[in-house]
């Protein structure tokens, strides 16, 4: 029997029982749609994280004071470490070969007030390099001046929301405001950027690092960002950083160095594993569809005994009879899978319209994997009914359903 004739014959079987066939195909469609949809959410999460880190530029080393061994696992957020990471340390690091830009970070909460308005605000003490490193755009006025790298100038660049809340509709640039005990002049307002890596940059006041040191009465930086030159090897720069720190900290390289690539790679690994796990859970529904297909096949086997007997009497070899049963299951699984993929793609497109901020996307492997699983389940679970059909005694079969 020709393969095409076999498929056409099976198609007539499928078409002759539309309700039964649609139900079976729907079971496969559901499974495939579940796999594709859930992995799209996972892929969306991965892309979301990628995009969040992308604002940092791709070649960034972040240096935290304190070794992560001493605090167990995570780098400390607020350094309760024996030795501070100072601005002098940071400046030495910025001179290392392969380092393009350096920005220190010394944040603190304080009261920002102007006229009758006051609110708690996060002040970030840093230098002008912070702006390109975090991809910040100044909407009006200007960024921190070069002199602010070292001098405690009484100036601030405000986030868009903070500026609006303190100054309303008035132009903030050029005005003065009170930050803690200091009076500072607003020299710029940031373009709205929104939440990024858990920090709402629209709500901050960016001030020179020396000003922050004065305001918060501390020498210790929270972290130092090093942006590497293109082509610089992050591992070599990290080694150089450790050498410098050891030389300056009495023989101890008591800092934690995290490369952004490493963080991204770690996130990527976690999310990929998570996504595979989710896909596997969704894949279980395809196995359920396979069991359903087997059940239906066994019922069909009883109902079509006479037909199987006839085919054998007409000279169909056992193999052909078995293939007819397998072909039917494969056809239904294939039709269901295609339908499931279309439904999933439609839902992903709808989701992308409803939540444009979340980058839902069908990962490239999801559809082939779901299709292969569906076909494999159909094949595996219709194997036994097919073998039973193939082995049926024609004389018994011709007597019809028992």
């Amino acid at each position, binding site marked *: *029997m020709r393969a095409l004739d076999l498929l056409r014959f099976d198609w*007539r079987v499928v078409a*002759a029982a539309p309700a039964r066939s649609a139900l079976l195909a729907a079971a496969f469609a559901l499974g495939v749609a579940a796999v594709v949809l859930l992995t799209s959410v996972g892929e969306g999460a991965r892309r979301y994280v990628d995009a969040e880190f992308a604002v940092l530029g791709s070649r960034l080393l972040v240096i935290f004071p304190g070794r992560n061994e001493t605090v167990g696992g995570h780098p400390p957020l607020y350094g309760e470490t024996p030795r501070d990471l100072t601005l002098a340390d940071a400046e030495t690091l910025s001179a290392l070969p392969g380092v393009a830009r350096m920005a220190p970070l010394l944040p603190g909460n304080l009261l920002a007030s102007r006229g009758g308005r006051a609110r708690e605000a996060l002040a970030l003490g840093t230098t002008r390099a912070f702006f390109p490193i975090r991809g910040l755009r100044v909407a009006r006025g200007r960024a921190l001046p070069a002199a602010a790298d070292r001098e405690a100038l009484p100036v601030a660049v405000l986030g868009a929301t903070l500026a609006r809340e303190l100054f309303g509709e008035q132009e903030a640039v050029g005005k003065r405001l009170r930050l803690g005990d200091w009076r500072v002049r607003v020299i710029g307002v940031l373009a709205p950027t929104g939440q990024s890596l858990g920090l709402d940059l629209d709500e901050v006041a960016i001030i020179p690092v020396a000003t922050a040191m004065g305001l918060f009465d501390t020498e210790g930086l929270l972290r130092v960002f090093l942006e590497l030159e293109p082509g610089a090897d992050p591992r070599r720069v990290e080694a150089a950083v450790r050498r410098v720190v050891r030389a300056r900290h009495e023989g101890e390289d008591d800092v934690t160095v995290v490369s952004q690539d490493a963080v991204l790679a770690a996130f990527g690994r976690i999310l990929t594993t998570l996504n595979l796990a989710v896909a596997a859970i969704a894949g279980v529904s395809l196995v359920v569809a396979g069991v359903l297909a087997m059940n239906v096949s066994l019922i069909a086997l009883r109902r079509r005994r*006479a037909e199987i007997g006839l085919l*054998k009497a007409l*000279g*169909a*070899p*056992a193999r052909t009879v078995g293939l007819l049963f397998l072909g039917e299951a494969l056809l239904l699984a294939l039709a269901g899978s295609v339908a499931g993929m279309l439904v999933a793609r439609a839902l992903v497109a709808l989701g992308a319209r409803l939540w444009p901020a979340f980058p839902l996307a069908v990962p490239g492997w999801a559809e082939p994997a779901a299709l292969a699983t569906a076909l494999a389940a159909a094949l595996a679970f219709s194997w036994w009914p097919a073998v039973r059909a193939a082995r049926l005694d024609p004389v018994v079969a*011709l007597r019809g359903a028992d």
Partner: protein
Amino acid sequence: MGPSGSGKSTLLHLVGLLDRPDRGSVRLGGVATEHLAEEERAALRRRHIGFIFQAFHLIGRLSALENVELPLLLAGVAPAERRRRAAAVLERVGLADRLDHRPAELSGGQQQRVAIARAVVTEPDLLLADEPTGNLDRAGGREVVDLLEALNRGGITLILVTHDLELGERAPRRIRMVDGAVAEDVRG
């Protein structure tokens, strides 16, 4: 001929290579068949034997033409030739105007004629009919018997199982069976 349970159908199934004998030999064209592999027996059925059943065994979802095409489909004949040959045979059995009808849209006699067309479309050497008129009324039975006789005169060996004495008397050779054994073998 013979009463029900006398072994007529079993003998027919043995001759038609659907069943294997516990003892003895079934020779087809002088070749012993009982030890052939199932695949080879299927191939022999496909090439040399046509079956006609009491219950017709037409496939309800397929048209008359498609039912007749079925043996050619299994033999791997190309679609165009399949259609041509099936249509020609259906014309010979007088159903040229019923090609696209489903079995349910045909009378019993017409359904059995479709089944006969299906049995002869491969031009077999041997036609085996098991109570072909058993499910038909008198008019339908006559249609079918006339057709089978015409085919037999045309040169196909016909073995017909029946317990209808009147029908049996028309055959040139009659084998009577009782309790699973040949009781009588009469020619002429």
